[in-house]
């Protein structure tokens, strides 16, 4: 068994333990072979790398990174300098990178949620609820006591008396539209708007379709018009 190159996993990447004695050209060949044979196992991800066992200069590190790039699907995003041994800085850097990528992924999720919709036929009665990672279109009514929760927009081709929560993972650009808007509550992102306190009687049916949207931390309900539609940001 040849142990001149060893790959060791760590929290956010890998450590490459290299033989101190071996000739650099020979070592490069060994690294290439090692990564090529573990290509499947290592997979395709963004990782950090550090080196142990041998002093390397900048050019040598560059050469090794090129070899890894060719012989694996890994994407090296950070090289840890062991001479610094400043792990705190390293951890912070990694965290920032990871967060940035998550935000990017989250942004994509919000985007898709706003663009896709699931259709439901029939009315939701009290106690029934629909939860979706996308938008929701209901061909029917949403009665009082029923709930619709969606990461995207909510469109109701009927009356809404219950609760609708659009953009539930924090998308304030989401909206709720209905042919007859008389909801108990509308929520967009984490903003909550409730109906006015009525005295027993049902509000009269709305004659025109309306849309609820968020602006500056408030939820507004307006008749659907060209101006309102132009202002939508999804």
């Amino acid at each position, binding site marked *: 068994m040849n142990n001149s190159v060893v790959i060791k996993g760590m929290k956010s990447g890998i450590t490459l333990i290299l033989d101190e004695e071996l000739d650099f050209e020979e070592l490069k060949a060994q690294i290439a072979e090692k990564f090529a044979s573990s290509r499947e196992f290592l997979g395709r991800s963004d990782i950090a790398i550090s080196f142990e066992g041998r002093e390397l200069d900048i050019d040598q590190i560059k050469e090794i990174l090129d070899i890894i790039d060719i012989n694996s699907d890994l994407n090296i995003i950070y090289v840890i300098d062991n001479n610094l041994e400043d792990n705190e800085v390293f951890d912070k850097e990694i965290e920032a990178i990871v967060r940035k990528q998550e935000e990017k992924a989250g942004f994509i999720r919000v985007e898709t949620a706003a663009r896709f919709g699931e259709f439901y036929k029939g009315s939701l009665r009290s*106690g029934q*609820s629909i939860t979706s990672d996308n938008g929701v279109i209901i061909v029917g009514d949403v009665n009082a*006591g029923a*709930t619709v929760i969606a990461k995207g927009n909510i469109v109701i081709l009927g009356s809404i008396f219950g609760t609708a929560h659009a953009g539930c993972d924090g998308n304030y650009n989401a909206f709720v539209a209905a042919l007859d808007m008389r909801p*108990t509550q509308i929520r967009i992102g984490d903003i*909550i708007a409730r*109906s006015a*306190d009525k*005295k*027993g009687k049902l509000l009269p049916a709305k004659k025109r379709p309306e849309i609820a949207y968020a602006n500056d931390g408030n939820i507004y309900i307006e008749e659907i018009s060209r101006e309102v539609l132009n202002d939508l940001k999804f």
Partner: protein
Amino acid sequence: MGEVIVVTSGKGGVGKTTTSANVGTGLAKLDKKVVLIDTDIGLRNLDVVMGLENRIVYNLVDVVEGNCRIKQALIKDKRYPTLYLLPSAQTRDKTSVTPEQMKKLTEQLKEEFDYIILDCPAGIEQGFKNAIAGADRALVVTTPEVSAVRDADRIIGLLEANEMKQTHLIINRLRMDMVKRGDMMSAEDVVEILAVDLIGVVPDDENIVVSTNQGEPLVGNDTLAGKAYMNICRRILGEEVPYLDLNGKKSLFKRIFG
């Protein structure tokens, strides 16, 4: 330390929720700090009767499952500053909560409130067991009908088996004209059958329907039912209150013309 009161009946439709709403509101009117808990998971009504449905964000199941703090789920009443409502979940069922969890919850609420009123669901299954778990006192609601009285008797038996400390009876929707004609059991008849202490008799009053639809409990106002509920609240506080003359206006009418 507060007192936990469960409002129960066995039979549905006899007025548990109306009684809970009015007793809770009445005690708050008498300056007590009160929290109403709707334990009817899946068929919640108390929020509607209290006119607070549109304020619900979190509910009983959220509290029990730790999705939110108790304070976040408590809805402050719009009329009385010392009255709060913990609404039930509508999209879940009775098995979402256990008696142990209810006991723990009421223990916590006891420290801050004078009265915790639990609106119990109809039936004798899990929902009933949840509601009575942490209760110190039970108000058994019945109407003067054989079926309701039969169910009340069953409930009182179960409460005794569960070692309820105090059980009181409320007779609801009594119609004096029918009693006089001999078509309805009198309050005395019901008490004789059930053999528990009576704490109130509420007449059948169409104002109840109006108040329920408006989401505005009528306790303490000038209607017969409003007065009867207020008397129940005073008796809960330990006051001696004489029973109302339920013959009301009709007897006056009869006295003159009859």
